[in-house]
């Protein structure tokens, strides 16, 4: 690496400039599948953040011990451990959310966002930087999932986080809490972010 970025930058890049969903288009399966309400988006985002942060710190700490040939296997074992921890935690303490998220919590293990961060960042950087990087990526993921979930919940059920926003006059757009709504909303969000970036580049 030519030049070390500032620590703040390490965290902030995941929020927008290298946002895992909007820019890198990573981890789209949970993004599309569980965001039919804002609370589900938050739960998924938090679980993913927990997994990516913990595994980044661990892998970064032991990066010099892991032989190059078995690094992917090692990463996956570490990630799977934290995913199982998160899954059991949700099932034990928030059973309702665990039920709503269904198989997508165990499926965090195959979220390419997480393995991608280990391969691209944690295996080459110190634990401190890896922590910040993973936290930024996790926060960026969480933010997009929350926004996506909030938009879909607002239009699909007339509420956000179960608080009714739109009154009785509102006819819920059923399609928004169905799979097509996820694709439509995500597509428009990505389009919007591209548009903003283009505007910024021009200015």
């Amino acid at each position: 690496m030519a030049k070390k970025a500032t620590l703040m930058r390490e965290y902030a890049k995941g929020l927008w400039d290298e946002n895992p969903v909007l820019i890198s288009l990573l981890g789209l399966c949970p993004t599309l599948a569980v965001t039919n309400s804002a609370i589900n988006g938050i739960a998924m985002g938090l679980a993913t953040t927990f997994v990516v942060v913990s595994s980044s710190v661990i892998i970064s700490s032991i990066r010099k011990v892991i032989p190059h040939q078995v690094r992917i296997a090692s990463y996956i074992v570490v990630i799977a451990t934290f995913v199982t921890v998160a899954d059991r935690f949700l099932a034990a303490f928030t059973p309702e959310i665990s039920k709503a998220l269904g198989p997508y919590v165990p499926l965090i293990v195959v979220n390419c966002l997480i393995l991608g961060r280990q391969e691209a960042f944690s295996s080459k950087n110190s634990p401190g930087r890896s922590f910040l990087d993973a936290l930024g990526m996790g926060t960026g993921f969480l933010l997009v999932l929350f926004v996506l979930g909030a938009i879909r919940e607002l239009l699909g059920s007339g509420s956000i986080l179960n608080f009714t926003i739109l009154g009785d006059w509102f006819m819920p757009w059923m399609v928004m809490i169905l799979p097509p709504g996820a694709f439509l909303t995500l597509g428009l969000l990505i389009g919007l972010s591209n548009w903003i970036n283009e505007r910024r580049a021009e200015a």
Partner: protein
Amino acid sequence: MNTSAKMILVLTLITMISGGVLSSWDGYTAPKIEQYRLEQLRQAVGDVLPAHEDYEKVEADGMTFYVGKEGAATVGIAFLAIGNGFQGEIRMMVGMRPDFSEITGLSVLEQVETPGLGTKIVTDPSNKENPDWFTDQFKGLVPQPKIEALKNQAPQNDNEIQAITGATISSKAVVDILNSAIEQARKKYNSTKEQVS
């Protein structure tokens, strides 16, 4: 140390640590998960059976019955009815009189019907007075010769219910699942009784 030995050693170590962490974490969370599952079951059985002190589990020919007891008397039998809905599996808990003559209650445990339409088999937010009107219809229903779902008209007989407007398929699915489950349950439960006596 050569590379292969190092590879084996490191992977083994990581896996062992991971196993250790997971087993201790499981020991901590498993009782809570099990407790939640039992609570859910107790609640579902309580919902569908008439007032009872306790229930006991009876296995019969691969089917599980939850027999509600008031003292020594059997007040009702609850069992699971599982079948295909519009999009996926519907799991319901059904409560019946001990002689299978009348349904005492129905509760939908799991379903993946279309949100806002088929999900009305659980709760119907458009019906402010009684969001559970669909499942409530089954209380006191006599499944003889079998349950029928009517579209756009009020039920006349003891074996008829009204289907949900716009979710005819989900309503019919519930009725079909019930009809076959009640039929099976009656046969299986009665066969165990004969063996005992």
